[in-house]
């Protein structure tokens, strides 16, 4: 656990209060209360269709909050459009279509930095973790392998200098070795940059490896909340997720 200041104890990185949301009239999230503490990693688990991605999309301003509020470090952000939320140092990595496959690797990264100098520094930095990035800046992102695309996504999230990072199912379809690499990078960078991380996962083992706490969503409500280090956490979660 990174050390936390008194200030951070008082003001959460992200706070949902009584949040309801959904698509049109279909309410997917119901009166949800959730706190992401400063500097922590919280994993959202749950079966498909239980509202995990919906929650991230609502926080990010893609879906309107039908009730309740979302606060980012104390400031209300619900009601703002996605670009205004992104500009407040929130990075969001959606589950599908998270990259521009027809833009090259460099352009995909260029979109989140201010100028060419910042891009060069950032590329050099993430190149330390993922050497293919500086080597293949002019290659179209869509032609990267599945694992490389996920690494590029993580790199893009990191170089945008986020205070809060929202990541939706980054391990989907990945080999265990790649998953391990992503966990390592996230750990190191979180210690360095101090961002708070909210991840949506189906892969329970990855979730528990990377998260300080977890929350299980069922039918748009939190069914279980606990620390990843708790004995029996994994069994309990799988119990929630099983057939």
């Amino acid at each position, binding site marked *: 656990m990174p050390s936390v200041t008194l200030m951070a104890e008082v003001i959460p990185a992200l706070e949902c209060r009584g949040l309801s949301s959904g698509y049109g009239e279909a309410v997917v999230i119901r009166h949800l209360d959730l706190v992401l503490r400063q500097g922590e990693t919280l994993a959202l688990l749950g*079966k498909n269709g239980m509202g995990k991605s919906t929650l991230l999309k609502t926080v990010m301003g893609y879906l309107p909050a039908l009730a309740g509020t979302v606060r980012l470090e104390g400031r209300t952000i619900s009601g703002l459009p996605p670009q205004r939320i992104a500009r407040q140092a929130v990075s969001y990595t959606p589950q599908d279509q998270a990259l521009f496959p027809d833009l090259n690797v460099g352009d995909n990264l260029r979109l989140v930095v201010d100028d060419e100098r910042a891009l060069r520094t950032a590329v050099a930095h993430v190149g330390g973790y993922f050497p293919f990035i500086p080597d293949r800046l002019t290659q179209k992102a869509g032609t990267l392998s599945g694992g490389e695309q996920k690494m590029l996504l993580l790199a893009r999230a990191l170089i945008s200098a986020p205070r809060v990072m929202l990541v939706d199912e980054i391990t*989907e379809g*990945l080999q265990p070795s790649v998953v391990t690499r992503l966990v390592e990078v996230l750990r190191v960078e979180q210690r360095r940059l101090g961002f708070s991380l909210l991840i949506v996962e189906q892969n329970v083992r990855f979730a528990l490896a990377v998260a300080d706490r977890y929350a299980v969503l069922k039918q748009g409500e939190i069914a279980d909340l606990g620390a990843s280090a708790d004995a029996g956490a994994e069994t309990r979660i799988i119990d929630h997720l099983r057939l």
Partner: protein
Amino acid sequence: MTDHADHAAESPAAGTVAPPRGLAPGTLAARHPVALGTLLALGAVNVAPLVIDTYSVNVLVRSFLYAAVALTVDLLWGYTGILTFGQSAFFGIGAYALGLAFTHIGLTPAVAVLALAGAVVVAAAVAALTGWLAFGYGVSPIYVSVVTLVLPIVATQLVFSGGTFTGSSSGLSGFDTFELDLEDWFRLAGCGLVLATAAAWLFVRSDAGRVLVAIRENEQRCTYLGLRTARIKIALMIACGIVAAIAGYGYAAYTDVVAPELTGFVFGTELVIWVALGGRGTLLGPVVGTILIDLTSAYLSGSLPFIWQLLLGVAFVLVIVALPRGLLPVLAAGGRRFAGAAAGTRAAVLPNLVPLVPTPTAAPADAGASATPALRLRGVTRRYGSLQVLHDISFTAHAGELLSIVGPNGAGKSSLMRCIADGHERTGGTVDIAGHPIGRRNPEACVAFGVGRKFQAASVFDTLTVAECLRLARMRHEPPSLWRRAKTLRLPVSALQVAQATGLLEHSGEEARHLSHGLKQALELAMVLALEPTVLLLDEPTAGLTRPERQTIGTILSALTRDSGMCVLLVEHDLDFVREISSRVVVLHQGKLALDGTVAEVVGSDLVRTIYSGETHALGDAHG
């Protein structure tokens, strides 16, 4: 309004017991307002020339003819959503048929009749060609606007290139034409317009007319109800083209002048402007709007031609941006508030819902179902470019089975459903519905073979009532009337059960957009069941529903497969739900059929456990 109340009180009871059949006494009364309005309007156009000044009478004859064309634009665009710039071309066809015939052959009764017949035939042929071009499978929706834009341009250029035959840019004039008094012209054009409007009015309010709105609201749902929307739209284009051509014929006869502008693109857009200002989808709005605008134009274009055009342009932009329904609905709403009386004409007809007695024709299908599987897939594949989402899927399903298809996001479940319901979807392999290979047929043909598809997001017709939505689902079996609304609606028992169990029946007079999410899902399910499908495809029917609603749907589905011998294919994420109701489960993973077995076999398998705990590499897949 009393009519409405009576039927509303009757309908829940009628759900289970067939009411006495026969002619309801309200039929004539219901038609009365239209008949009355028509008679009043006919009287008005016969008296008007005696009181209005000659100049206005003179202009109004033309306005009436324009209004008749605007009526067709409203049917096409306002009701059916086909944005057409080309009705001027049909007007021009009618005008030039007369102009050419009278100029080059001369005025005899035979020539006049033949010219009219020629105008009608040419207009119908051009409309059919336009419709065939615009409404083919896979042609983009904007294409109809492209074609209807090309049409008047072609027509104008043909006139230009016709030399002395067509009179080129100066047109034809001074030919002998019918000798009628101005007042008689007025009465003729006026009566024609009133009758055309009354006919259109009856049509759009008839059962068949609701199809137009259904196409505008949700064409995909229409095709999956087995309605051949392309044919319907082509038929409408032909009818509208003929009406416009007759108006054009009248115009040429009256003014004794035909000019290329009559066929042109600018006139085509003006028609759209008049319809938009009057109020699209209201019939009366476009008619009144056209008459008023054309009359005002005639008075102002002499003194303030450009200012008037400028004002029209400003009004048009304001209406499109701020009042997309046009001015008539706004004025009507104001008038209604002023009068304090609700003129809810639409709600007046609410049919009794009657259970359908199973017909003997259904029996052979059932008998055949036991011999041939209800559904057979062999080697079905689906690619999107280089991405392959389905690999060699083969399985069969029989009548009375409830087969669930499960798998993580992106496993290809929804793609599989699409491949069964639309012959154009799959890349390879075969799909047979009750022994019929679907080949490369359209969804409506697959519906004819027995497919009923319920979409994931409730797909209904927002501005139609529940009863109207259900009526549309029955049209494949019971062709609708072109001028009236049937008093009863016969539904299969299963559809009626769904409507009853979910409480949908109490809302049968309500527009679908006002229903709750759960009731919309129930409505779509009832609509699909009304098709009497042999293979029912359900894509996440419980998504976004509350727990009690899920249970209701689950109970109904179990009963349906058991009692009606339907074959149900269910895509579902909620595995608890799957376990409760399925007789068999197919697991899809990364586009491949990973497992096919009973509920117990699938639930107990290690494979499913690994797929769902996220360790996808366990399948030996080297992805990434």
